[in-house]
């Protein structure tokens, strides 16, 4: 027995890109199904990276800022208002080798869960961990992927944030609400973060910087008690005590699913044609952070999600004319 359902458009992922594509596709009567992902404590979850942030201050239309999760709930409601169907599942396999395309969720079955005339890929990116020994077992025991979830538990304690971009500055600034001191450990001697976020971190008396250092080991047995760091120039190593460590070193695109089927850069980002969201497979479009290693903003993701839906609509029309 096959439970496969056929759809005009299947959208994989539900961050700003996927949900904007859903709004536009739904309004074009393409009845999109959004396979939105599954709950997790990393950015790989329904709503995407913004679900783990607090104030979003640079999304146009919100002069007083908006909470990341609230913004994503609004995106989702808006897509549903026009009939987009949301499915809380994770895509486990795709087959883009023939049309209609096949999309699987859950266990591997011979028949796909969905077949689709067109697929919009908006699986986004998730935060990178350091890849050090014992990392997985220390998550939740002093090592955190979610400052908004876990900052509360480090009241009046000294903690550290690893990274030098906007997310590192945002997390460090947020964490000073709880911690007595936040050390930003960065491998260079200057930050990648935007000027306004840098200024805010520099002005915060609770934030200190440890420049030109990388974390090479986690200290502590059942829970994190500190880190071993190495100077990037003279290789000198030292041990520092921290009750908590928050990771903000960057993101990697969620593209393992598409290996061998969609063209990607060495870094894993999907390749789209210039000024377009078209991939190497006709009828498969990619939008948002999964194909953007330059801007990576909610508003650029939303913009490219709109492009993907319009391109899918025009491509579908051309197929039937």
């Amino acid at each position, binding site marked *: 027995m096959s439970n496969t359902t056929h759809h005009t458009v299947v959208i994989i992922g539900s961050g700003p890109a996927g949900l904007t594509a859903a709004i536009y596709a739904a309004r074009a009567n393409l009845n999109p199904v959004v396979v939105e992902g*599954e*709950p997790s404590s990393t950015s790989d*979850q329904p709503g995407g990276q913004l679900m*783990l942030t607090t104030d979003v201050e640079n999304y146009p239309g919100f002069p007083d800022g908006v909470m990341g999760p609230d913004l994503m709930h609004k995106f989702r409601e808006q897509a549903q208002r026009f009939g987009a169907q949301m499915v809380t599942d994770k895509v486990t396999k795709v087959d883009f080798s023939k049309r209609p395309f096949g999309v699987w969720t859950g266990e591997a079955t011979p028949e796909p869960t969905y077949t689709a005339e067109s697929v919009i890929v908006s699986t986004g990116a998730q935060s990178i961990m350091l890849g050090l020994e014992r990392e997985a077992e220390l998550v939740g*025991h002093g090592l955190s992927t*979610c400052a908004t*979830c*876990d900052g509360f538990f480090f009241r009046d304690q000294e903690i550290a944030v690893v990274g030098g971009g906007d997310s590192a500055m945002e997390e460090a600034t947020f964490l000073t609400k709880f911690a007595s001191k936040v050390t930003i450990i960065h491998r260079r001697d200057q930050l990648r973060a935007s000027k306004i976020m840098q200024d805010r971190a520099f002005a915060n008396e609770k934030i200190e910087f440890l420049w030109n250092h990388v974390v090479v080991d986690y200290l502590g047995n059942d*829970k994190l008690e500190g880190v071993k760091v190495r100077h990037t120039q003279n290789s000198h190593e030292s041990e520092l005590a921290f009750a908590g460590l928050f990771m903000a070193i960057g993101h990697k695109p969620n593209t393992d699913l598409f290996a061998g089927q969609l063209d990607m850069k060495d870094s894993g980002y999907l390749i789209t044609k210039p000024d377009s969201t078209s991939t190497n497979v006709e009828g498969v479009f990619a939008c948002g952070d999964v194909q953007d290693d330059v801007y990576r903003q909610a508003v650029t993701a939303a913009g490219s999600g709109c492009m993907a839906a319009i391109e899918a609509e025009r491509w579908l029309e051309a197929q039937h004319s």
Partner: protein
Amino acid sequence: MAHPLIDELTDSSFDELISTAEVPVLVDFWAEWCGPCKAIAPILEEIADEHNGQLKIAKVDVDSNQKLALRHQVMSIPTLILFQGGEATKRLVGAKSKRDLLADLAEVISN
């Protein structure tokens, strides 16, 4: 608002429920400001409904019950701790799908 099968535990009511429960108790340490906690709340309600009689689900709001969170060394939420016969026997950290959660609880529930 509150789910009829899910008890909201506090610093004072926790020990009694854990020590007298006749079935395993899964305690969800959560807070209002935690997005991943909100994401798994409906999943826990479904599990409470579907496995009523096999497993009891309870919640601890860490914001108003900080002593309990500290006592159980909760440093990240959501943290789910399974208690059997009054003893903590399993600890699950982080939000996950219903499928993964049921797999983690397979020892105490049957389908």
